[in-house]
Each structure stands twice: as structure tokens, then as C-alpha cells.
């Protein structure tokens, strides 16, 4: 079995990386009870602890993790791509713009897609 990502709730549309995932890796999506549910291809690097889109997510949709909304999609996200501060915002207290830019820079996130 290859690299793993964990689904935290059965309604989730994102999964969390348990390894450093690289572009084109085939990853196993695991349940929280450690059962492999299915595999999918990563479309970009997803560092350990970060989230992958399990399906195409449209702008305006709410991101579901732990079976609840944890933010709003601000830019269409293709299945297999990184879900993070460049395409999702908080619905409560968002991270200030300057901090977001610093996170994107430090993580070297591709914001062109």
C-alpha cells in the first residue's frame, strides 16, 4: 500500500495527508478506523497534514471536514488538488491577507491553477 490520506467524517469532501504526497502519487484514502476506502491520484504536492479535494469543488461551496463546514471555497478546486488558504476562506475570522501571502510563499503553493 502506498501513501495514505485520512477521511475524518463520512460526509467530508477533503482528506488529510498522513505522508508528504507528491504530484501524480496514487494515494489510499483511509477511514478513521484504518480501512482503505479507495485510491486516487494527487494532482499536485500535498504536504503532511494538508488536505486534498476528493471531488471537484465549486466556488461558493462549503468545505466539509469532520462532517461539518470548516470554510468557504473562493476558487474552483479540481479533484486531487490542495485545499488550503489560497482557495478557501474562514466564514468566521479569516486569516489576514499578509499572513495568507506568507503562508502561500513559505509553502510554495501554486495559485495559478
Amino acid at each position: 500500500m502506498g501513501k495514505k490520506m485520512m477521511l475524518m467524517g463520512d460526509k467530508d469532501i477533503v482528506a488529510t495527508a498522513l505522508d508528504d504526497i507528491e504530484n501524480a502519487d496514487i494515494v489510499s484514502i483511509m477511514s478513521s478506523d484504518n480501512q482503505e476506502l479507495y485510491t486516487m491520484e494527487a494532482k499536485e504536492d500535498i504536504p503532511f497534514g494538508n488536505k486534498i479535494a476528493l471531488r471537484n469543488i465549486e466556488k461558493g461551496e462549503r468545505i466539509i471536514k469532520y462532517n461539518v463546514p470548516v470554510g468557504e471555497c473562493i476558487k474552483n478546486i479540481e479533484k486531487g488538488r490542495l485545499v488550503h488558504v489560497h482557495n478557501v476562506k474562514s466564514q468566521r475570522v479569516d486569516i489576514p491577507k499578509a499572513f495568507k501571502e506568507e503562508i502561500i510563499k513559505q509553502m510554495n503553493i501554486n495559485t495559478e491553477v
Partner: protein
Amino acid sequence: MEFMGYKRPDGSVGIRNKVLIISVDECCEGIARHIAKDFDDVVLLTNYYTCMLGGNEETFNQMIEVGKNPNVSACLVIAMGCGSILPEQIANPISKIGKKVLCMNCIESGGTKKSIELGKQMMNELVEYSNSFEREPVSIEKLIVGVKCGGSDTSSGIASNPSVGNMVDKFVDLGGTAIGGELMELLGCEEVLIERTKNKEVAEKIISLIKNEENRWSVEGTEVETMSIGNSIGGLTTLEEKSMGALHKMGSKPIIDVLQVNKDFIDKPKEPGFYLSEATMLCGGSAVNYASYGAQIIVWTTGGAGFNNPLIPVIRVSGNEDLINDDIDIDATGVMKGIEGINSVGDKIIEKIVQVANGSLTNVEGYGEATMSLYQKDQRVEKLLNIPCKR
């Protein structure tokens, strides 16, 4: 399920048998420390805030409630004698529930050296009384567990917090009581939380108490860290996501009530089950908050290492392979590696709680314990922000 505990006269049950020395002002703490060093199983609680009662009521209330904690068998209450808190004001409510309490005023006792001598005599009497308690089998319904996180990282939201949540659900099913806190770290979780109560008043309390915390920690012109860049690089995208990870340690059982701690009153659990509370997000202060609610034990999730308390043992749970060391009681790294399920780690935590309740020491118990920090909300700020105390 049963455990072996110390039955107290008020019906509560201790898992440790400690004599508590309460220094009602910081000036007598040195005397208290000098007295304590000749004894085992003694814990020191000092009010460092001011020696006055006015504006110090939340600390005052907590000193009394910690004295009533079931892990305490007897108390020695010491004051220097020049402040405005009299030892009897603390001692009387504690002795009212049947605990043995002695008081000392250092000035009236003839100064430092004479007070130390007298204090040691008093401690001999209290320790002899304390030693009369023996462990006996009692129902797990007498056990109250505080749940707390700190030093959180990616592994907390994936491994340790969900494992502790799994434990909380099982523990409540067994008839035990669990208390969560850190309302500031529940911003964004209100909808999920209010779904967990059928009581409209409790639902309103959840909303308003979280809002109060939001107000306290976001005063205009001051800066409060809600999320660090390190949190985000670790994979957290929004505050809601961070909160949901933290919430995960609180299981899924109905919320019976939100326990409050303030200048007017401190709530206690009235029946077994799961409670939210105003226990602060600051680790040291949270332990004393939990002790004030009557909790005998804390389960703490962490990236690695961290927090300990001399009165209520802290079981540490971590899923971070890089930071794990022999401070950690429960290794949840198997969840991160995908080789162990949350259900299995939850079972291990339950097993550990019962062992620790029966008298087994946690990995760091007896070593390098933290101060019993008496954290309180500043009454002047509360007034300026117009945050009232109400039940």
C-alpha cells in the same frame, strides 16, 4: 465498572490522598513551602494575585473549591495576617463538607520561624488523619475527567483528539463524567454544539459564553493569536477547522450543561455525563479550574510533552512520532501511520484512566510538576466589556 478510591465524608471519591496547603497570600508562601518540604503527598496552592479580597473573588472561590476537591483529604490554610483574606474564610466552607482543616495566621503565631514550627505540628496531625483513609471499591460514576489540549499540531486533530473523543463517549456510556473547556477554541463550533443539547437554556448558554470569550480575547487595540502561520503550514486552513479538531476530543454525547467559574459562583456537575465548561485554554489555570469543578483527573492531548499537575494527575496522549518521549502515557502514533484505529486508542485511554484512578502513577507524576496556577478573569475588564456573571 469500579475503581479503588478514597471515599470522602461528602460522598465524593478521591483517586489521590493529598494534604493541601493553601497560602491565601503570596507573602506566606515561603513559610508554606518550608513546612511542606518535610512531608510527602502535600500540594501547595498559592494566591499570587493580591492579598486583598476585593477584585480577587474568582481566585477566592477557586481556593475553596480546590480545598473541597476529592483528591484532597485535609487542608492547612495559612495567611501572613496583614492582608484582607482571613484563613477562616477559606477554611470554614471546606470543613463544612466534612474535611479536616486547620488554620494559621503567621503574625499571630509569632513570626516566620515559630509559624514553620507550628505548621509542621499541624501537618503531622493532618497527615495522620489523611493516612486513616484507605482505598475501597467504588462505582466509576464517582469519577470526573477533565479533557484538555495544548501544544496542538497536525497529529492532535487526526490522532489524539479523536481518540480522546472516542474515550469520552465510552466513559459516559460507562456512567462517568467528562468535562471539556477552552470555549475560545470552540469559535465556529456553535451549531454542532447546540445540536448536542435539547435544553434551550443550555443552548443559549453555549452561544453566550463562547461570545463572552470572543469578546474577552478580541479587545480592540490588542492582538490575539487565533492561528499561527505554523498552524497553517501544518495544514490548518481556517479557525473553524482548528476549532473542529479541538472539538473532536469532546466526543458526541449530549451536553448536559456548561459549568461556569466566576467571582460569584463555581458550578459542579449535577449528574454523570458530558459537560462543557469555562475552564481556560491556558493549561496551568485550566487544571485548577477542573479541580474546582471536582475533577480528579485530566486527559491532555498534545503534539508532545508539556503539562502536569500535582493534585489531579494528567494523562498525556500524543500522536506526534517526532516529539513523543517517556512523558507520554498514551502513544497514538499508530493512528498517524495508519496501523491502529481510533477505537483501539480510545480503549487504551479508558484502561489507563482506570489504572491511574486505582493509584498507578502517570509517566511524569511526582516529577517536575507545574505550579497550581490560579487564573482568574480581571473584574475591571469584565466590567468595561459589560460581561455579567449570570447562571
